[in-house]
């Protein structure tokens, strides 16, 4: 195909300034340009950007250009204008990527050439699509029967590569697993999706899916890092047998799953030392077994649930997360939802760096 040559003289493309309003309160996400004139933001119909919520003041704040910078000024709002986690007391200059919180709404300030912004938006859309693909593979909660399951999944903006699943292998045996692919982005999501597909439909020829060590070895055989663009993944895989009440499990490079039993103070760590899948060819993966008392609950979660940074800059670890498991249930919320709210509350404001996957399985 013939293409007309691009004009050889590059014309300086002007810098544009935008606010990306994230979806909230039933409003879809959208992008608003900040032009040369001031932009008022508020609940009132006369505002340039209307945010319909009782927690947003009628005239809440105003954005105005000062040379090439955008200055935000709070207009005496009731709940304040929060910029990157701090309520502003005086007009503030926005840095690219700044997050403004007004009531339930989050606005992200960006600037750049229109073509660059459009390209970034396209990449973000691709990532969102990759994330939705992984989400579509997640199982439905199970409300009845000898094993009940529910979960909460919060993908990060740049997709962390988490995946999980569970289901009956046959009449007596129930499999459950959670994986986390190295790195971020669409590549990690795609690898997560291919592994999830294999595990969902048990399509590793010649592999006994009731044997955790065999499953890990088969995955390791299939997904060597050198053949997967340098990506590898960690996984916890377990199989519960209702006849023996035994849970056989294997863990490849991941932190433990935890089992809490009524009457016991601390949850028990279920862990076996094995390398992550893809790191070591022909590794002899090992498994372990644990008895599952009636009323036991298994917690499976990704490291995104505990490797979080707090508002005061501390890096939390697994040890900070574990005490949450022993806390009382939250009325009206599932256990994974309760944990997610605790994690969200402990983390600094803004989106989290990694996917958060929280799965609970209850054994009657």
């Amino acid at each position, binding site marked *: 195909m013939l293409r007309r040559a691009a004009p050889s003289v590059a014309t300086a493309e002007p810098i544009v300034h935008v606010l990306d309003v994230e979806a909230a309160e039933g409003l879809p996400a959208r992008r608003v340009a900040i032009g040369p004139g001031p932009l008022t933001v508020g609940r009132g119909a006369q505002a340039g950007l209307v945010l319909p919520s009782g927690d947003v003041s009628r005239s809440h704040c105003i954005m105005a250009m000062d040379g090439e910078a955008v200055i935000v000024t709070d207009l005496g709002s009731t709940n304040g204008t929060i910029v990157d986690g701090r309520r502003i007391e005086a007009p503030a200059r926005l840095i690219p990527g700044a997050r403004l919180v007004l009531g339930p709404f989050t606005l992200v300030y960006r600037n750049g050439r229109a073509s660059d912004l459009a390209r970034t938006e396209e990449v973000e859309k691709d990532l969102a699509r990759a994330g939705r693909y992984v989400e579509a593979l997640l199982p439905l909660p199970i409300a009845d029967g000898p094993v009940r399951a529910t979960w909460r999944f919060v993908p990060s903006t740049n997709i962390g590569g988490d995946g999980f699943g569970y289901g009956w292998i046959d009449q007596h045996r129930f499999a459950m697993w959670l994986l986390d692919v*190295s*790195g971020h982005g669409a590549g990690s999501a795609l690898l997560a999706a291919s592994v999830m597909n294999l595990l969902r439909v048990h399509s590793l020829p010649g592999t006994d899916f009731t044997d955790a060590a065999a499953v890990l070895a088969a995955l390791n055989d299939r997904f060597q890092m050198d053949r997967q663009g340098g990506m*590898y993944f*960690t996984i916890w895989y377990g199989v519960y047998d209702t006849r023996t009440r035994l849970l056989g499990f294997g863990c490849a490079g*991941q932190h433990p799953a935890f089992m809490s039993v009524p009457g016991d103070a601390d949850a028990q760590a279920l862990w076996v*030392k*094995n*390398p992550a899948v893809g*790191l070591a060819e022909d590794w002899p993966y090992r498994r372990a077994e644990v008895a599952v008392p009636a009323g036991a609950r298994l917690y499976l979660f990704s490291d995104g649930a505990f490797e979080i940074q707090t508002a005061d800059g501390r890096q939390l670890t697994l040890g900070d997360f574990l005490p949450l498991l022993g806390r009382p249930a939250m009325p009206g919320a599932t256990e994974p939802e309760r944990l997610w709210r605790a994690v969200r509350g402990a983390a600094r404001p803004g989106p989290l760096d990694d996917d958060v996957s929280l799965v609970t399985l209850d054994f009657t």
Partner: protein
Amino acid sequence: MDVVVVEADGAPMCLVLTGRLDAAATELVETSVMAHVRRAPGHVLMDMAGVSFVGSLGIRLLISAARTADRAGRRVAIFGVQPAVAEVFRTIALDDLIPVLPDQAAALAQIRT
């Protein structure tokens, strides 16, 4: 993330890493670390006493370095790892794949056996 190369006659090359080996930093140092490992005349030691964090891509870099050395009939050993990083190595079983030792003397002894 800093990488300093210490080379002395008759001793294995030592790469002194300092900082956080997170995704962004790993991307920055990956090429140079791999180039040093490739051109090293013998075994390679990695001094990680100054590394406070190793992410999943950092793990990948260490494994790639060890594999590259292995293919050339040489070895990589790591020493001086901080407790939080040691915990990550243990979880992912990196310490079963690459020798991780308390200090340089132990790393040298291990690599020469």
